[in-house]
């Protein structure tokens, strides 16, 4: 880097970029300056005074502007009369910093003594005890005794609910404001604030209902004391008692890296997940996760889970052995040979989907598999998706992000944090949606179109950019003036947004599925459902932004492995064709009936599930599967990063991993599948046979890189109680364009909305089979749609 500045910390030279604060510079050198209020992901405020250091600057000759030199030809140093806060003071060339001399040590002792005057001696009952920055720093830097009168302590409310999930212990709070600043600066839900002043200063919530944020749990991680606790984990276990296992969140397509804190409980001697914490991955979720991911783990130990295979006998589902169930499945699949349709949900792992595709190709000799829910454009994302090396956390000036027909916060909450941060660094966001979303706050251009006209708008932008050689004729019809008329977006705004796109160095097009068109009608994929992804792909290709890092398509997929399941099915040549003469139906991890759809008629239905869903109730054979926490596997997130998760808790009952069940069926059908011993073996085959997935062997996925800021390990005070990444940061696979260099544009006539067109709206906190199992999260779940219905209706 060009602007490296040399500073001396405790006489040791370190070169850091301009603008770095002393605390960070020292940290890079391995020198720990204690902090409470400072957090590397937040703006410095210098409130706690814990980071006081002695700073010396070079004396400058006023006449020449050059540093004065002493007898040894070294710059003369003027030491500050007072100590300075290391977290707010940026480094300067030639600066000298002392962090460990007597003056500084005394200041640290005094600050800690003050902080502890009103801090209760709660450590034995405090949830933070054992991973508490205040505890650790007191031991390291603090005084052994206090001079304050014990009876003069502040006694405040110890059980103050800030919201439904987060509790505040006002006594423990040391007023560092990390939680307030996180809500303001990172989450942009300004729902916390200070009340009172002096020793009685307290945190309180400003919102109704209290602490109304999708990211509230993160404040408990960065709280340097045990003041903020979650209802989920309160008093459940001491931190050192848990086994921590790296995992991946399964609630949305971001694929946040998690650490599952597990323990064997006394009740039934079963392993269970006690808490979910973020695991640092600067390419995916940094050190944040949303509340749904944090509290949505209870389905793994739900009483409603299926534990034994069920077989329909005399019209009733009855418990059966695996042998019996698998034999029956294989027997029926053999008879119906070819007249089988597969449905596979997009929550299952890559291994599951791959073997399922292979089972159909080799075992039952048909390619009729649909991934569910039906999504459009997964092939386009596979081809023109963001290039390998994309990092939303690195986007800045010169980048334009077009978000169309998707509510980022509701579909992929952590992307909202990252795109907002990108906008703050100088990236330009163009937010196009039929309704107002949170992303509008950070948009350079906010385009509000009439429901159903999103495709026209994208072509309007393409027209304004004046690109698109392959489809120039068709796009020519969509002049900004005409598009303004169709969509209701002012012409000037379309032109301005087009100008931004035309000038963009990097362009990412984020598309969602908040549009009124059905993707599948009567068993047929529709053009209307595919029009928007195709238009976005055309935009990326026409402007030359395909196949490069930080460029391309990013889809707000509905589930955690939509892309991976599609890729695996495509690799096995699976294709959806309408089903006639259907004799058997094989459904894995999907509940079409529960979603209000009808199943095609079939003589025999096999369902592989966690729960006895509405679909499973109709099945002839129900095979119990394992949740993500009970097995190994990989997911491919929306950025096409393949990430590995690990077995954290023991399997429930006789349930088995999806891929293992499919293997058993395959073997029973006579396939030579005995070599699939582990999911690792399946993934090795995927990496060897699917071109895009080369280099995704388990060993490669487990590689970690050094990350800034350093969190976890012994370093609790710096980045909060997050975990460093020891399970692997994953591998971002190449897009199709990067592999073959071929790109093309296709024209799909933009669909025209009718007056009845109603927007399909995705909401994070809608009820669902999995999230309904989390009692702690129930207050957040909603039944009603986000907005009044009339806003969602077409023109």
């Amino acid at each position, binding site marked *: 880097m060009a602007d490296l500045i040399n500073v001396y910390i405790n006489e040791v030279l370190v070169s850091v970029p301009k603008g770095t604060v002393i605390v960070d510079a020292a940290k890079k050198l391995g020198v720990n300056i204690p902090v409470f209020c400072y957090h590397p992901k937040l703006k410095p405020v210098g409130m706690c005074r814990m980071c006081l250091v002695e700073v010396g600057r070079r004396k400058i000759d006023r006449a020449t502007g050059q540093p004065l030199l002493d007898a040894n030809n070294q710059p003369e140093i003027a030491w500050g009369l007072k100590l300075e806060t290391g977290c707010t003071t940026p480094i300067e060339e030639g600066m000298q910093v002392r962090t460990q001399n007597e003056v500084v040590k005394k200041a640290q002792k005094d600050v800690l003594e003050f902080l502890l005057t009103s801090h209760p001696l709660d450590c034995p*009952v405090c949830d933070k005890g054992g991973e508490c920055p205040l505890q650790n720093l007191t031991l390291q830097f603090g005084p052994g005794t206090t001079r304050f009168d014990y009876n003069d302590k502040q006694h405040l409310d*110890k059980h103050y609910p800030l919201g439904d999930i987060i509790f505040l212990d006002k006594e423990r709070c040391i007023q560092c404001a990390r939680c307030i600043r996180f809500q303001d600066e990172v989450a942009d839900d300004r729902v916390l604030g200070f009340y009172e002043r002096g020793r009685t200063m307290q945190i309180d919530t400003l919102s109704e209902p209290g602490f109304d944020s999708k990211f509230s749990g993160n404040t408990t991680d960065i709280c340097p004391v045990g003041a903020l606790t979650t209802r989920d984990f309160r*008093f459940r*276990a001491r931190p050192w*008692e848990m086994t921590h296992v790296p995992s991946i969140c399964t609630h949305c397509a971001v694929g946040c890296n998690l650490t599952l804190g597990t323990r064997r409980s*006394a009740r039934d001697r079963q392993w269970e997940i006690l808490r979910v914490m973020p695991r640092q991955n600067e390419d995916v979720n940094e050190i944040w996760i949303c509340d749904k991911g944090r509290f949505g783990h209870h389905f793994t130990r739900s009483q409603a889970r299926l534990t034994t295979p069920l077989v329909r006998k005399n019209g009733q589902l009855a418990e059966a052995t695996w042998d019996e169930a698998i034999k029956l499945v294989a027997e029926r699949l053999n008879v119906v040979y070819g007249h089988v349709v597969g449905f596979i949900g997009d929550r299952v792992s890559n291994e599951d989907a791959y073997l399922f595709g292979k089972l159909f190709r080799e075992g039952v000799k048909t390619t009729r598999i649909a991934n569910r829910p039906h999504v459009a454009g997964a092939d386009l994302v596979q081809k023109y998706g963001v290039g390998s090396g994309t990092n939303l956390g690195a986007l800045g000036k010169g980048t334009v992000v077009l978000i169309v027909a998707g509510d980022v916060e509701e579909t992929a909450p952590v992307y909202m944090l990252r795109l907002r941060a990108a906008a703050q660094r100088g990236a330009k966001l163009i937010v196009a949606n039929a309704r107002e979303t949170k992303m509008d706050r950070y948009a350079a251009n906010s385009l509000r179109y009439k429901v159903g006209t999103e495709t026209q708008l994208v072509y309007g932008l393409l027209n304004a950019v004046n690109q698109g050689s392959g489809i120039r004729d068709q796009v020519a019809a969509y002049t900004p003036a005409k598009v303004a008329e169709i969509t209701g977006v002012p012409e000037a705004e379309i032109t301005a947004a087009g100008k931004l796109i035309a000038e963009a160095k990097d362009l990412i097009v984020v598309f969602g599925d908040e549009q009124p068109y059905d993707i599948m009608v009567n068993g047929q994929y529709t053009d209307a459902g595919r029009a928007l992804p195709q238009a976005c792909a055309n935009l990326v290709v026409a402007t030359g932004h395909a196949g490069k890092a930080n460029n391309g398509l990013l889809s707000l997929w509905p589930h955690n492995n939509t892309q991976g399941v599609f890729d695996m099915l495509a690799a096995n040549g699976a294709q959806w064709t309408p089903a006639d003469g259907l004799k058997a139906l094989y459904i894995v991890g999907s509940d079409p009936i529960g979603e209000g759809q009808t199943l095609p008629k079939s003589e025999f239905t096999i369902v592989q599930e966690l729960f006895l869903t509405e679909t499973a109730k109709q099945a002839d054979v129900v095979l119990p599967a394992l949740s993500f926490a009970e097995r190994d596997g990989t997911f491919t997130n929306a950025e096409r990063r393949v990430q590995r998760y690990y077995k954290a808790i023991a399997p429930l009952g006789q349930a088995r991993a999806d891929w293992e069940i499919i293997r058993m069926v395959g073997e029973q059908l006579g396939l030579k599948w005995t070599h699939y011993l582990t999911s690792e073996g399946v993934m090795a085959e995927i990496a060897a046979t699917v071109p895009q997935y080369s280099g995704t062997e388990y060993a490669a996925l487990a590689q970690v890189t050094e990350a800034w800021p350093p969190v976890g390990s012994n370093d609790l005070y710096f980045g909060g109680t997050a975990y460093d990444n020891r399970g692997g940061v994953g591998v971002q696979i190449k897009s199709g364009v990067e592999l073959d260099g071929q790109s093309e544009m296709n024209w799909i006539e933009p669909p025209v909305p009718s007056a009845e067109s109603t927007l399909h709206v995705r909401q994070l906190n809608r009820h669902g089979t999995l999230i309904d199992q989390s009692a702690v999260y129930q207050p957040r779940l909603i039944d009603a749609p986000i907005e009044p219905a009339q806003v969602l209706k077409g023109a």
Partner: protein
Amino acid sequence: MITEILKGMFITFREIFKPPVTIQYPEVKRPVRQRFRGRHELRRYADGLERCIGCALCAAACPADAIYVEASENTDEQRYSPGERYAKTYEINMLRCIFCGYCEDACPTDAIVLTDAYELSAFSRKDLIYTKDMLIVPPPAGKPGTPQKVEEGAYNRSILPEGLVSEP
């Protein structure tokens, strides 16, 4: 040679008139030393509340990993111990315990103490996992057991004043 035999017989003859040292256990029991460390018990305060706050520091201190604690939250409707936290599950595996007394040292509320009971035997290994109801002492005479329904806000500290005074 005959002298040696007579010498030996003399000692035998002398010992016949001394009181025997054999103790007729189990009918007769030797008193234990004052600082003997035997079976644990979980104590209560004078008002019947449990001293144990479920902090699991005993389990952390235990070198044999014999103690297992699961905590939960007190309410004024159902109060087990003062403060917010109590031990929902408290188990000691007596087969693992080495009676070192570190748990007693670690306990911030003097809840767990090692008594002088040493007759610990059972017919199965499972029976030697002592659960909380086996370990906890009965409430003082005339006082209710736990959980208790108490006045709101009366017990918002995790330790009562009597717990702060170290007993001899």
